[in-house]
C-alpha cells in the first residue's frame, strides 16, 4: 500500500501495529504455558503465567491510550479508521484471552494436590486447536489475510463440539467416582476456558476480515444477508 504523505502518521500506525503484535505474542505464550502447566502439572509455570498477566494488562491500557490519541489528532478514515477501531477491539479480546490463560493456571493450582486418575486426551487436542486458532488469527492480522482468518472461524465449531463431548465424558466419570469430582470439575472448567479462548480467537478473525475487506461478518443470523 502507498505510504502516507504525513510520515508522522505513518510511523504512528506502524508503532500501533508493533504494539498489537507484541501483545498478541505475549498472549499466545500465556495460553501455551498455561496448557503446559496443566499437562505437566507444573505449579511454578502456572504461577509465572498468572504473574505475566500484568504485562498484558499494561499493554491493553497503553494501546487504548495510543489509539485514542491517534483518533483525536488524526481523525482517520477508511482503512486507517478500520485499523484503529479494530485495534481497540482486538486488544480487548487479547486481554480476555490472557485472563482465560490465568484462569486455566488457577485451576491447575487448584487440582494440583489431586493426582490424575484418568486422562482426558480430548482436552489436549482442544488446547492444540485453540492455540493454533489464536496464532493463525494473529498471523492473518499481520498478513492481512482474510482467507486465513475465515479458516480460524471455521474451526470454532469443532472446538465447541469437542467441549460438549468432553463435558459429558467428565460428568459420567464424576457420577461413577465421587473422588474424581474435584479434578473433574477443574478439567471441565479448563475445557470451558479453552472453548472461550476459541471464541475470542474467532472474534479476532472476524475483525481481520472487517479490516481487510471492510465487511462485517459478525452475527449473520441477526443481520440477514443484506447487511453483508
Amino acid at each position, binding site marked *: 500500500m502507498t505510504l502516507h504523505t504525513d510520515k508522522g502518521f505513518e510511523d504512528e500506525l506502524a508503532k500501533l501495529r508493533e504494539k498489537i503484535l507484541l501483545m498478541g505474542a505475549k498472549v499466545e505464550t500465556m495460553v501455551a504455558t498455561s496448557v503446559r502447566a496443566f499437562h505437566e502439572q507444573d505449579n511454578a509455570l502456572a504461577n509465572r503465567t498468572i504473574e505475566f498477566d500484568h504485562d498484558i494488562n499494561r499493554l491493553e491500557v497503553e494501546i487504548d491510550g495510543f489509539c485514542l490519541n491517534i483518533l483525536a489528532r488524526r481523525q*482517520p478514515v*477508511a482503512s486507517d*479508521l478500520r485499523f484503529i477501531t479494530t485495534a481497540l477491539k482486538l486488544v480487548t479480546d487479547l486481554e480476555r484471552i490472557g485472563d482465560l490463560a490465568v484462569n486455566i493456571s488457577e485451576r491447575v493450582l487448584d487440582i494440583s494436590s489431586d493426582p490424575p486418575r484418568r486422562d482426558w486426551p480430548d482436552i489436549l487436542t482442544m488446547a492444540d486447536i485453540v492455540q493454533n486458532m489464536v496464532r493463525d488469527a494473529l498471523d492473518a492480522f499481520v498478513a492481512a489475510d482474510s482467507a486465513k482468518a475465515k479458516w480460524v472461524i471455521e474451526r470454532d465449531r469443532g472446538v465447541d463440539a469437542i467441549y460438549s463431548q468432553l463435558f459429558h465424558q467428565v460428568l459420567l466419570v464424576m457420577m461413577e467416582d465421587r473422588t474424581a469430582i474435584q479434578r473433574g470439575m477443574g478439567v471441565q472448567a479448563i475445557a470451558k476456558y479453552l472453548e472461550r479462548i476459541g471464541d475470542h480467537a474467532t472474534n479476532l478473525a472476524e475483525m481481520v476480515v472487517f479490516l481487510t475487506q471492510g465487511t462485517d461478518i459478525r452475527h449473520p443470523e441477526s443481520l440477514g444477508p443484506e447487511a453483508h
Partner: protein
Amino acid sequence: MNALSSTLAMPRLDLHDSASLLVSDQEAQSPARASQSAKMATENLSAWFGKNKILKEISLPIREKRVTALIGPSGCGKSTYIRCLNRLHEVIPGARMEGRVLLDGQDVYTRAMDPVALRRRVGMVFQRPNPFPTLSIRDNVLAGWKLAGMRPERPDDLVERSLRQAALWDEVKDVLNRSGTSLSGGQQQRLCIARALALEPEVLLMDEPCSALDPIATAKVEELIHQLGEKYTIVIVTHSMQQAARVSHYTAFLYLGDLVECNTTDALFTRPADRRTEDYITGRFG
C-alpha cells in the same frame, strides 16, 4: 452539568411497558426508504478552459433535499463542476462545456433557459463572504431581488424568514440597518447564505463556504448546512474531508477531471470502492 453527564442523561425506560422493549429494532424500522430522486444531474459533462480539459464526461445525479459534497485535490475540477450547474462557467472568457446539465429533467443549457432565472433557482454561496459593503444587512438580504429588478410582496417578512433560515436572525434583528460588513466573518457568510435563500432557490451551491472561517463560525455554518439539507438540494465543494464527512449525505470524489467515485458519505469514508479514493482520503497522495 458537565458534557459527559449531559451525554449520559438518557430518558428513563418505562419498564411497565417492558414487552414493547422486545420488539426488535429491525421490526420497528419502516421498510427501506425509497432512494432519493435526482433534482439535478449531469450527463457526460466536460468542461474546458481554453485547450485545457478540466472535466471529463462527468455523469452524476444530485439527489433532491440531500447534501452532496464534492471532494478532490486542488485543480481536480470540483469548483468548475458546480459552476457548470448554474451556468457560471460560461461567463469566463475561453471557457466552454459539453454534455448535459439537467434540472428537474430539463436541460439548463437550452436557449429557452434564461441563465439569470436559472441562477435564481440554483443559488450560490462563495468561498469568501461577499456582502455588498455599501448595503445594510436588510438590503443585503434583498439584494438578489433588487438586482433582478423585482420587489417581494412582504420584504420585511422575507428578510426575517431568510435570516432565520440562515440562523442569523437572533444576532442581527436589532441592527438590520447596519452595514453588512460590520458583521464577523462567520456572520457575513451566513448573511450571504440568507441572501441566497431570499431568492427561494431549489438548489444551493456552496463553493468552500467555510474556508475563510474560524472553527466556531465553521461549526455554525455546518450546522446550518445540515438543517438546510432537509429543505434544499445542496451541493458543497470542500477541501476539508472532515467537513464533507460531517455535513453531507453523498460524497463524490473527483481526481484530474474524472469522477472516481460517488457513494453515500458513510460508505465512502469507511469502505471506499476505489483505491484512488482510499489513498486520497487517508492522505496517501504524494
